[in-house]
Structures are given as C-alpha cells and as structure tokens.
C-alpha cells in the first residue's frame, strides 16, 4: 500500500529537511510513499495548522511545527 505524504510549508530550510527525513525513513522501512510539498499559503491554511512544517499522511495531519523525530515518522508510516 502506498502512503500519500504531504509536507506543508512555504519552502524554508526546515520544511525541506522534514521532507528529506520522511523520504529517508520511508526508504529505511521499505514503505512506498508519494511525497508532495505543499507551499501555497491557502492550501496550507486549509489543513488547520498553526505552525510549519506540517506533515499530512493519507489526508490526516500528524505533525505541525519544528522538525519531527525519526521514530515518530516511522510511526506515521507504519
């Protein structure tokens, strides 16, 4: 099953790092994902988060603000 992951953020360094962490963790766990970066402010706002970077997995917001922990990413993708 392919997980649909979105990283929400205007494109700052943290958002890019978050996207890379998700990609690396998925590769390590052998989980197939599609990764999309959402940079449009209106689109980000529609998810109801107050801080970026945000992470959405299969339509559900799992993280908002700051870099996520690697273990947490594994949990979302499991």
């Amino acid at each position, binding site marked *: 099953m392919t997980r649909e992951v979105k990283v929400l953020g205007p494109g700052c360094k*943290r958002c890019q790092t978050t996207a890379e962490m998700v990609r690396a963790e998925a590769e390590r766990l052998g989980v197939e994902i599609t990764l999309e970066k959402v940079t449009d*402010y209106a689109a980000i706002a529609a998810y109801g988060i107050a801080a970026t970077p945000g992470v959405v997995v299969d339509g559900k917001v799992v993280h908002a603000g700051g870099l996520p922990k690697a273990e947490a990413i594994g949990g979302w993708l499991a």
Partner: protein
Amino acid sequence: MSCSCTASNNNTPETPQGLPTRVVLGRVVVGLAAWAGVYAMLAPTSNWLVARLPVEPGSHLADALAFFVYDTPKVLMLLALVVFAMGVVRTWFSAAHTRKLLSGRREGVGNVAAAVLGVFTPFCSCSAVPLFIGFVSAGVPLGVTFSFLIAAPMVNEIALGLLFGLVGWQVALAYFGFGLGVAIVAGWVIGRLHLDGWLEGWVRELRSVAAELPPERVTFADRVDAGIEAVREIVGKVWKWIVAGIALGAFIHGYVPADLLAEVMGRDAWWSVPAAVLLGIPMYSNAAGIVPVVEALLGKGAALGTVLAFMMSVIALSAPEMMILRKVLTARLIAVFVAVVGAGILGVGFLFNLLFV
C-alpha cells in the same frame, strides 16, 4: 530575525533516548557548574592576554582590544545560557496550544495573554504567515493575533540574552517589560480600529478547522535536548554577527568622541528618539548585530530610551517581515501596523529618557 523555531519535538541523535530524569538532571548541573567555572576565569585570562600584547597600556588601541577580548567570550557564554533556558521552557508551549488558548478570547486580557505567549511559543519568521492565518481563521481576534506577532520576534531570547550580557539585567528586564507593553497596546489599538476588512480577500473567506494532533510524550531528556539544540543552532548562526558587532562596538569605545554622541543621541536632543525609530525601520539586523553597538553607544553617553527605541525599531519593524505579511495583509493594514507599533516604540523611548536620568 532569527529562526528560533526549535520545537518541542527536536531530537539530537547522540543522546540516548529514555535516560532517567535523575541522570539528565545530574548532567545539566555538571554542565552549568562547568559554565560558571569558565565564566569566572574570563576576566583574569583576558587581562593577562591583553597585557602581553605589544600595545601601550591605556592607549585607545589597548582599550578597544581589552573590550573585544573580554566581551566576545563573555557575551557568547551569557547568550548560550539564556538561549538554553528559553529552548527548554519552549518545550512546554506550541503554536497549536497557544491558538487554542487565544481563540475567542476577548480583547484586553487576550492581548496580554497573546504578548506573553508570543515570547514563549516557538516561533520562526518563515512560519509567520501560516501562523497568522491559522490564528485568524480559528477565531483569534485580529488585534490579539497582532499582539502575538509583535511580541514574538521583538522580545526574543537573543535580544534578552545579549542585553543581559552586555548592558546588564536591569536593561534586559526593561526591554522585556516595555517590549511586551508595546505588543499589548499596539495589538489592542489595532483591534479597536476594527480592520478585519483590510485583510486580503482570500484570508477573510478562509475558515479552517483546527487540526487535532496526536498527543506526544515529551521526556525531561527531550526538553534538555531541545535546549542544547537551540544553543547549537542559534549561537552557531549568530556568533559572526556578535563578533562583528563587538568589533564595531570596540571601535566606538576606543575612538568615537563622547561629546559628539552625547550631543546627537543624548537626553537633551528630543528629536533623536523619532529619528532613531525612523532610522530603524529600513534597517534590518537581528538582535545579535545590534546589541553590541547599543552597549558601546550607551557607554559614550547616548540616552537609554533613544538607543532602546532604535533597537526595537530595527528588530520589530523590518522590511522583509512586512514583505512576508503583505501576502495576507493589504498595504493599508501594513501601514497602520507600522504607524501603531512605531508610535508605541516612540512612547517607550520618551518614557525611558524621562525615567532614567
């Protein structure tokens, strides 16, 4: 301004997970003791060092060198301490939680709460727009949102840590108090003006439901890690600014005549406060570069109110920040924002010059 969004869920790989609180606490105490030991050695070491340099004691050059050699490590150490403490404290706060606390809050109390939370909630300028929309669309009043957005960048750990290190805790405390004051009053005024119609159209129409995040367990070790990570990130980023600022400050110390500065920036020159605010708006520097200069100007007889007004203006009213906010605010609303905050800073400058003789 600096991106200090070192959030609760930061993690440094080299610290093993799940350490008992006792062990982590012990390490923190040992670390703080080592810090105090090095700090106590700074003055004798730098005196010894400067005395061995081939410059004439008591000359301008010797003064400037002594200032530079002693102040640079001292300031970096005090900054690291404040940044660490703030990094740890911030793990108890998050933007989502702050939004929940503030949504539907009435003006007045809401402005006070927003300004205080603005200091302690992890915030980063790249997150300013999502945060603004997230707050407003979740029912946080516009004026309350502004109180948050003014306090968050202005009253930051870098400004406080450096003022504490270079100028003294009294001035740092005054900056903290008056910074909050400006954020509270300016936000309240903007709220009373009922300018919700001056937001960009798409922001007004947006209604979002606050996302429910899964709860996260944060251990004491995680909090300490967040503090260490904050020091690494912030001090690692701003040290060049501080060294450059202290070098400039050393130059002012050694060479700029005191009479000149006292005349231009002294308490008798009433026009120097508005001039300082106006001059600060186009200037963009983080606190790291500006505080060492502030210290040197004060030492040469510049009035405290004038210098603090300049510093607040440089940090709180910056062109890049406004460019980011222009995406959600109309130009008219930005003009009101600058005018109201500028007036608040002006008031602080005059008040300070009046109170502190």
